[in-house]
């Protein structure tokens, strides 16, 4: 199958999935009790304001029409209006998401960087020195890191590096330095998962015939390790890394909460708590799109790493 056809098929099924997610969220929001107008308008809203808000949210239309206008707002790229403040708020949902997206992107990228830079050497080292104390130490450390709740680790990082040492800025700050601690908090968790994956995958690959052949024909060990073994061992690592990257791009709510950072996850949570349907639907849509795109990219990366898959 050519890359083009593969992409088309994946995009097609991705679109169906995204549509499914949208319908589910739409249905869910309308099943759940609680009038969004009450929440958004506040207690002392005039009937006029309430009506205006209802109109802004499109609640005066029938359910199918509401869904159609939701699709229309996707098409025109606004994702609808926020409608806060008695319907007077003309800002678009897309605008609100665009405001927080850079924070989420940078955190995800930095977290990924931390994870990969630490995980690959650690995993490879543990695999090569299998059965030694280095392996035991690396395995124990990564198992513990996976089990450690971020709700404990992130405040601890703040305590050490912001309160005690004062090396990095604290919660609510922005800028490059303020990215370090959240990235560490997000990254170490993923690092632990990836290190374990790298280790087990490397151990398996190092037992393969082609690695023995490579060694037997006198290739230097570094070439055997990094060209022959690592490339094959990376496949499952890429999968996990990709999926986790997708979930980091959807916003790390706990980390955003601890470091008082804006982000997609927090915006979704705010949207839900404000009962602001357009914001919730917009966030969910963006997250679903990110997930689908990341999944397709992971599959493409698979093909790059393993020529057998490309031809299959």
């Amino acid at each position, binding site marked *: 199958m050519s890359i083009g056809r593969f992409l088309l098929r994946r995009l097609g*099924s991705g679109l*169906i*999935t*995204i549509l*499914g*997610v949208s319908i*589910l969220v739409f249905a*869910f*929001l309308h099943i*759940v*009790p*609680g009038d969004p107008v009450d929440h958004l308008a506040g207690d002392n809203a005039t009937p006029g304001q309430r009506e205006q808000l209802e109109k802004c949210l499109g609640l005066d239309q029938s359910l199918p029409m509401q869904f159609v206008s939701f699709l229309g707002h996707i098409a025109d790229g606004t994702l609808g209006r926020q409608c806060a403040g008695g319907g007077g708020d003309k800002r678009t949902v897309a605008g609100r998401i665009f405001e927080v997206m850079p924070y989420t992107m940078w955190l995800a990228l930095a977290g990924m960087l931390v994870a990969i830079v630490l995980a690959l050497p650690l995993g490879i080292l543990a695999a090569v020195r299998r059965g030694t104390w280095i392996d035991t130490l690396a395995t124990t450390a990564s*198992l*513990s890191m*996976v*089990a*450690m*709740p*971020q*709700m*404990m*680790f992130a*405040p*601890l990082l*703040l*305590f050490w590096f912001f*309160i005690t040492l004062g090396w990095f800025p604290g919660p609510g700050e922005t800028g490059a330095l303020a990215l370090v601690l959240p990235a560490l908090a997000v990254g170490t968790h993923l690092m632990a*998962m990836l290190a*374990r*994956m790298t*280790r*087990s*995958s490397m*151990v*398996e690959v190092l037992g393969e015939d082609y690695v023995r052949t490579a060694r037997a024909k006198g290739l230097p060990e570094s070439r055997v390790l990094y060209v022959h073994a690592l490339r094959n061992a990376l496949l*499952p690592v890429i999968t996990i890394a990709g999926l986790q990257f*997708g*979930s980091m791009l*959807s*916003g790390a*709510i*706990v980390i955003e*909460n*601890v470091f008082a950072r804006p982000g997609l*996850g927090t915006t*979704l*949570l705010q949207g*839900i*708590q404000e009962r602001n349907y357009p914001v*919730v639907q917009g966030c*969910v849509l963006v*997250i*679903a799109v990110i*997930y*689908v795109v990341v*999944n397709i990219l992971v599959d493409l990366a698979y093909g790059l790493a393993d020529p057998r898959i490309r031809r299959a």
Partner: protein
Amino acid sequence: MKRLKGLKLSPSAWVGLGMVLTFVLAGIFGPWIAPYDVSSQAIDLTHKFEGPSSAHWLGTDSNGRDALSQLLFGARKALMLSGIVVAITATIGLTLGTLAGWYRGWVDEVLMRFVDILLSFPGILMNIAIVATVANPGVGVVILALAANGWVGYARVARGQVLALRERDYVTAAIALGASNRRVMWKHLVPNLMGPALVQMSFGLGAIILIEAALAFLGLGPQVDYTWGSMLDQARTFLWKDDWVKLYALIPGLAIMWVVLGANLLGDGLRDRLDPRQRGKS
């Protein structure tokens, strides 16, 4: 289940089993052996923010309540919640997965589409979203939220397993002998699913404890008594306190870590035992 008897587990799996068992014991007996009450009647502001002492082994919180007692009562809450959620998700997931794998066709198609949709969204965000949507959520809402996507893993495991099992000779033989669909599923398929299901349950337990804590940490769970998550939320402020009072900041996190680590070790060990091809994979 016979296959699971006399199971030889790796040392790390035994350690994991031991860790999970201490959690189960703490959950069952904890509230009885807890030295103090933790309800709102137990508030004692003359003893707030105390470090460890002979009266309060792990110190007290901002309301003067005993930290060790909170930990033990929290274990009961965590055990009940995770037990219920694991039971619900495993039942739903294994049933749907078995049906999809056995009947295939449109049943399978519909189920897998639905699974795809659920998986195209970060699991924990979905849990958070569901709980946040409901005003004043109770424990039931948390269970519902965790079950909403928790069954997916079981369904995939069961479906994959059944798709492989249905080609086995003994299944073919059972069909040839005129066994009904129900009989084949109950007598021949489900018993062979229990191993992989147990692995999934083990990992599921750890995940549920973590997510429940995250919910309470974000202030989204039911606002009742003590859970490890609400302790974690409170614990944040203790990092700013003096000396040993800080200990409170670590207690709930370490308790959660203990259970999750134990569950993961056990899950790894069971998987190695039941499916040697998967050995060492995380």
